[in-house]
């Protein structure tokens, strides 16, 4: 479904991603695991196309020059230079890190904004689906999103991404700042997405413990370099991963 080959991303002279290649097959949950500054967010921005926007903005401000080399192929089509809005139309939807919601609007409005370009009936359908997935949001329907707790905001953020009807959902650090209980809830929801709706999920995360058991395939990044790949089980059995991420 998604093929990334020899991706290199420079922020001015700093190399954020170095010769990174990966593949995501349809119906899989693929995980990118790595510590801070591993290049997870850069990868997500490159896949969603946000980096193109960042590149233009930085250039206009005379800021850091962003250079991208390599190839991103989605369903057989080269999308390396495709704009982020066109990528969403193709089905790649990113849920950015740190709860990207509209704090001044209420929950229902947030979901409606996310589906603005879709047909009203489809949006209603998707909103029902989101409320089904996260029943906790139903009671918060008309509450301002800015006053939601971190976990509720993250649920809403994932819900917003879903309303845009992705075929490939990119989740950037979905567990950031959530309690273990909330983490479990979200992990179950992501599993449900794959099993019930057939949405392919690519998620990046620092917390390997809740993530590794659910992924079909994983990539371990460190300082922009690909260190290890394997299925979730293989990665969990790897002694280095055990030492670095599980403290065993």
């Amino acid at each position, binding site marked *: 479904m998604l093929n990334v080959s020899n991706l*290199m991303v*420079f922020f*001015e*002279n700093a190399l954020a991603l170095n*010769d990174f290649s990966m593949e995501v097959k349809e119906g899989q949950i693929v995980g990118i695991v790595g510590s801070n500054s591993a290049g997870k967010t850069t990868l997500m921005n490159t896949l969603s196309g946000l980096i193109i926007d960042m590149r233009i903005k930085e250039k*206009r*401000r*005379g*800021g850091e*020059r962003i*250079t991208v*080399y390599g190839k991103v192929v989605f369903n057989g089509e080269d999308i390396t230079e495709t704009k982020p809005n066109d990528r969403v139309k193709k089905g790649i939807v990113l849920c950015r890190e740190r709860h990207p919601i509209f704090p001044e609007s209420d929950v229902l409005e947030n979901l409606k904004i996310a589906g603005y370009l879709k047909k009203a009936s489809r949006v209603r359908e998707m909103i029902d689906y989101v409320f089904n997935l996260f029943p906790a949001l139903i009671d918060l329907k008309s509450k301002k999103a800015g006053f939601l707790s971190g976990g509720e905001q993250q649920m809403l953020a994932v819900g917003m991404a879903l309303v845009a009807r992705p075929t490939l959902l990119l989740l950037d650090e979905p567990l950031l700042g959530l309690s273990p209980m909330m983490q479990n809830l979200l992990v179950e929801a992501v599993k449900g997405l794959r099993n019930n709706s057939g949405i392919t999920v690519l998620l990046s995360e620092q917390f390997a413990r809740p993530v590794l058991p659910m992924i079909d395939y994983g990539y371990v990044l460190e300082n922009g370099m690909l260190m290890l790949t394997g299925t979730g089980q293989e990665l969990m059995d790897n002694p280095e991963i055990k030492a670095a991420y599980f403290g065993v």
Partner: protein
Amino acid sequence: MKRRKERIDRGIKARSEDIFALSSYREMFYLLVPRAIPVVGLLGVAPFLSPYWKEVFISTAVYALLAISWDLLISAGLVSLGQSLFYGIGSYVAGALNYYWGWSPLFTIPVATLVGGVLCTVMLLPVLRLRGIYFAMVTLVLPLMLMRLVEATRILGGTEGLTGLTPFPNPVTSFYIIQIALLIALFGFRRIIDSDYGLVIRGINDNDRSVMSAGINIYWYKTQILFLGASVGSFAGAFGTHVDMFAGMPGFALDYSLLPVASAVVGGMGTFAGPMIGAFILVPLSEVLRALGALRIVFYGLFLVVFIVALPEGIFPYMQRKYHQFERWVEIE
């Protein structure tokens, strides 16, 4: 073979960043040149200018002062669209002191600087809690309001204004007074904003809640910056009023509000030198274009648009980067 352009600090920049800058004349020269250019440029050109261009230079410097004052306010996140408030208040205070009590410019200008600063600060104090566009709206409205107040109540000369004020002894004096004031504002404000105090100011612009969380009363700091900015604007007004020998409603004109903003955008915001350079391009340019008559504004606007599209970061940050860094092609893999 793929290539990309690399941006690297010049060796001399790295060397001149610490005490070793003093070890060779080359490094000292490197540090000195950018700082010497405005000093020599502003103070040294006087003999080469015709009387007409001297006048232009003086009014340019007045706009540059207003632009620098605008830039100081923007460093603290205060978007001001009312530099003419500062200019007008300064001009009326100095004008009134001179007109009614016969004070000489030697006293009216310093007093107007301080009193103008305090008056403007007090006037804007209630809206200091507002941010962004709300603060901007109030600063935009206040000078227009004061203008109508003068017109309606006929105080301070009403629509006629206060005329026949004491001029400066000669054009050379006024020329040097404004240039030196401009240099003091430029280097002084740069010093302030580079200090730890400036760190707080820039922090307020960046994320005021974080600054509050550090136990700092941001409104007190905003008040101080507002007073500094307003004082500089009032100085420009007091100076301008003695140059024109007139204080009146035109002091609140929109020109004094908008040109500083345009200068800052052209020159590069938050750098102080940028807005000054911007003013020194825009004001003389508008004089040169005077020959075109009504088409002047068209070309002026066109220039602004082209400039903002082509170099959105501003002239000064661009020059700064070229001075400190070089670029070269490198091959990857």
